[in-house]
């Protein structure tokens, strides 16, 4: 992986990378291991997206009786009335 690719990836994940050159080297090694795994023939096999999930997990369309909103709001670092307040992102 070249450094620019890593920087783009880090930017997408909003990560601050202190030493991109060093990490790019580590990533390259990691990706080599993956490419080894890619050699395995998986033709006709369904990808395993969920190892543990079995069956449908559905919920009735019934409103939950409890209201935790005040407690959740109370945990916010900054508020204005009932709004969560953050720096202007526009």
């Amino acid at each position: 992986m070249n450094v620019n690719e890593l920087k783009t990836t880090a930017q997408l994940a909003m990560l601050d990378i202190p030493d991109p050159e060093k990490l790019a080297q580590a990533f390259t090694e990691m990706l080599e291991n993956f490419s080894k795994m890619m050699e395995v023939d998986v033709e006709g096999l369904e990808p395993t997206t969920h190892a543990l999930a079995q069956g449908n997990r559905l919920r009735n369309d019934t409103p939950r009786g409890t209201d935790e909103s005040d407690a959740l709001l109370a945990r916010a670092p900054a508020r204005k009335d009932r709004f969560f307040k953050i720096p202007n992102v526009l």
Partner: protein
Amino acid sequence: MYQSFIGLEIHIHLLTKTKAFCGCTSEFGAPPNTHICPVCLGYPGVLPAANEEAMRMSYMVAKILHCTLSPKCYFDRKNYFYPDMTKNYQISQFHDPVGRDGYFDIEVEGEHKRVRIHDVHLEEDAGKMIHSGKTSLCDYNRAGTSLLEIVTEPDLVTGKDAEAFIREFRRMVRHLGVCDGNMEEGSLRCDANVSINLQGQGLGTKTEVKNLNSARFVRKALEYEIKRQKRVLTKGEKVIQETRLWDGDNNVTAGMRTKEKAHDYRYFPEPDMPPFCPDDAFMAAVDERMVELPLAKKQRYLNDLKLSLDAAEFLVEDSKFCDLFEAALALESSEPKLVANWLCGDVQGQLKRADVSLEESHISAGRLNELVGLVESGKLLRGKAKEVIELIINDDKDPAVIVKEQGFEQVLDESQIDDWVKQAIDGNPQAVEQIQAGNKKTLSFLVGQVMRFSKGKADPKKATEKLEQALGL
């Protein structure tokens, strides 16, 4: 010559009681951050679960759009960083949505067009933000509510096509009962992709137009955008792929300031949500709620029931009136045309005047039929039908009862009417003279006299006939 290609992305808010993946109510209008919980705020360790009704409605829409329904649909994470979602991702569907490869028929100026549907997928809506000064304020009441996205292929050609699509689509979701279709309030939203190219050269470079909150704006924005792209290409320049916002005040689209890098949402299977496999019972419930498409219904009303175009349009536009109409026809052998005319005439008019919705009123299929029957059999004065309707709207009473209580019965007794006619003629020799001298207008004066004697209970048509007879006209 250039040709144009338009594809639509439509988002509808599903009419579920709760959000898509948690038990918060999805009702609007509450104070900010009232309907929030650890799941829709994306707290660590929470486990979302799909709303069964949202899944059902999603499959209903995919089915009515003739899609291939997924036997195993997956949820995916769409990663993006913006504080309208606290999780930094949106649960959506990408690789295996609810439905694919469908179509929807529309009618544009009397001509039928088939528009292919690329896919139908369920996702969650984001929260709302207010930006002011140094701060942004976040309200997550809407975050996590069920949003169904329908993506068409670029089969629409003109702004008119797109407007017709939106209108027909809105009718469909209302009839299906999955969305209220209100564009102004944002429960039905539409973005449009449009490109133009020289004839036979396929799709051009597209722009995406947003901020279209009415069907009319969709048309106007696309008409503008097609003209703009033509100007660009004619000058020998290139269309830039970008998102443009419709500015309804100035009737133009304007490029949005966007970051140079294209979005990369890095979709991957949502680990917290198992795939969903609809079973037979689920599909049976979906089938049970299928309805006749409004366009097909309109054709049936015109061709089989011989309704007027206005009446047919009115009924399919409002599914509540349409349901009442169908229920009235199912009850007994009322003449469909008469029932339809009463519905879109005085019933609608009186409801509007009373500012009462059809559901709130006491009008029912049975009462509607009864009213039509009373008028047709001559038992109710036609002129009083409006008042009867007004009374049924507010009072829980049958038309026959109201007619009796209010004394709205029409006098059908011929000899009684003859007496009034005689009285009118005898009492107004001057008027009779004028009529016989050729002034036919005076006849209406005598009709008025008969109506006065009868206290409005005679049939004016009958009175006119009898007066003409008596005067040898």
